[in-house]
């Protein structure tokens, strides 16, 4: 136990020396600023603007949502500025709709929507069955994305950076003759990364989804964070043990980050669905995290398979570690 404690202390010191904690803190601040001052404001999309050119005043009941323009020229300019808007030209006595082409269904809806504004009728509010407001949804969504990105990035890269450093210093060689269990060397690293990831998740969630919302989500989010953190840390360890240098590792990693994460984000956040996405392991992990944020249940099969994956990865990492120690003599 004493051996484990000193290993733990050594790992924390090593990470602090590599500015690991400072980097995490900087990214936490960056992300929080982005969510609170950038993202929430971007996510605002109003329904189409409607412009009416009606010099003779033929339309009597005009909804306040309609913008009046004074000439055909002004109407055309307004349409060009915002190509999803709808123009109505009533200069000939009959209303004519002018709009820029989108899809056939959207064109029809825009036209009918604009015409409906010319007739007075009480707006019928739709029945609301969800619990989130648009802002809450946007905050949860972006927090989930950032957390996923940061966990895959920091867990993976950080553990590899630490291990490469130790490899370079010859710690693995020294470890082979130390009187501590070989497993502890790996376990202490996992524990340190798990704890730092959990702290990061707590802070990110509370700062960006709001305190009262965040506290409710935390248990589920932390469980998913633990799963993701362990998998990424083990994968990082494995890569660090198998690859030659850190440079190779980061190049490979950047490629993974850009090209492997993009389809997952597309499938999970937009209506775009790829047929093969179910085969992408990160998709399931990401959806697990997302489900935690939106308080939907996760199937037990996911937990079983991630537990299996973690166990398998740990086993493989141990094998690689032993091989490395033997190679070092």
């Amino acid at each position, binding site marked *: 136990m004493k051996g484990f404690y000193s290993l733990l202390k050594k790992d924390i010191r090593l990470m602090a020396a590599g*500015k690991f904690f400072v980097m995490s803190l900087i990214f936490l601040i960056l992300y929080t600023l982005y969510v609170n001052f950038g993202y929430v404001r971007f996510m605002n999309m109003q*329904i189409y603007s409607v412009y009416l050119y009606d010099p003779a005043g033929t339309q009597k009941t005009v909804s306040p949502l309609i913008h009046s323009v004074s000439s055909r020229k002004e109407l055309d300019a307004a349409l060009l500025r915002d*190509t999803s808007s709808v123009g109505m030209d009533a200069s000939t006595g009959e209303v004519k709709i002018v709009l820029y082409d989108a899809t056939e269904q959207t064109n029809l809806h825009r036209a009918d929507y604009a015409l409906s504004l010319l007739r007075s009728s009480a*707006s*019928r509010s739709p029945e609301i069955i969800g619990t989130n407001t648009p802002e809450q949804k946007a905050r949860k969504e972006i927090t989930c994305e950032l957390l996923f990105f940061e966990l895959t990035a920091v867990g993976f890269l950080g553990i590899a950076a630490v291990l490469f450093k130790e490899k370079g210093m010859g710690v693995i060689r020294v470890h082979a003759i130390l009187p501590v269990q070989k497993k502890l060397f790996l376990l202490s690293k996992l524990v340190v990364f798990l704890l730092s990831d959990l702290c990061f998740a707590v802070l990110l969630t509370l700062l960006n989804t709001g305190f009262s919302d965040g506290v409710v989500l935390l248990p589920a989010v932390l469980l998913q964070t633990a799963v993701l953190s362990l998998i990424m840390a083990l994968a990082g360890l494995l890569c660090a043990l198998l690859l030659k240098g850190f440079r190779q590792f980061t*190049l490979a990693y950047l490629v993974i980050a850009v090209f492997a994460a993009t389809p997952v984000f597309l499938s999970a956040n*937009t209506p775009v669905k790829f047929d093969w996405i179910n085969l992408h392991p990160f998709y399931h992990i990401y959806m697990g995290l997302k489900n935690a944020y939106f308080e939907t249940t996760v199937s037990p099969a996911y937990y079983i398979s991630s537990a299996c994956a973690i166990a398998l990865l740990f086993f493989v990492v141990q094998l690689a570690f032993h091989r490395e120690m033997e190679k070092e003599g």
Partner: protein
Amino acid sequence: MKGLKYQLKSIYRDKFCLMTFLLPILVAVTLNFTGSIDLSPQGEFHFGILENDLSPQVLSWLKQYGSVEHFETMEELTAAINEPSTVVIGVKADGQSIRTIISGDELDIFRQAASNFPILYEQREAVRRTEIQVMKQPDVLAGFQDMFIAITLIVAMFMGCTFNAMNMISEKEDGVAFVNEILPMTPSQYIVQKIAVGFLCGCLSSVITACICYRLSWQSAGGMLALIVLSSFVAALFGLFIGRFSNGLMAGVGYIKIVMLLFIAVPIACALIDVSGPPALLCYLVPSRPALEGIMALSSGNAGTALKDVGILTIHCAAWFVLYIWISARKRRQV
């Protein structure tokens, strides 16, 4: 020249590094052969209805506006409406009219449309006789496919940045940086060699990617080449900056992460949401912004914008290069 040969030889040995430069090309090939990815724009409607709830007339009326999905039970419909990644508007029969159900977390456009649908249904007879004039979209980004390709190209261009930065940092870590200082090599030779490696590989990778993805006229090809050469040069320079300023692997990775995020996020954000005024000018400070704009302009045949972007990139190249030379000259004087 001889030094450059050694640099290239060291890359050649490093198979892994070669693969990273090949990856954007692989992605380009995949994008080219998988055909178009259906990225239907947001703003299209998806309706969820209960089996046997709506009359055939209502159903065919709904289908004019969007796709309709049938659900067996109310629970399934509720789950589909609440699913955060899609926007499904629930529609139920309500006497002679219809009633809409939403989750409440949708963007304003969907909430407003949902409250408008019952009205549209009641007025369906009255609105049919109106003439609709549909105009062709002006200067539209031809789908997201182009954007995907352009981003791949940008990633290819900026691979040189990562490569240079990592190269310099690992030289620092291994102590090769000290050896370099006593080698019979002038500082300018060193800078040229270091830039050249990342620059050449980035260029080569981007040129191949561009050849696979675009069928350009000779004139546009010239513009594209200029864009590629200039962006790869800026990227290689950025790599040198990162390499010079980071004193450890972790810090280097952090800087690369920030630079990559900026390089990818800023141009995408600028292309998706119309930014105007001072913020738009500020975006041009990130070199990938004019690069992306130029590529998109070339693929849609807009030579004027592309020329402007080439000009901006040239200024970037000159400014960053002078800054780098100035910094290293000052450092030397201090030593």
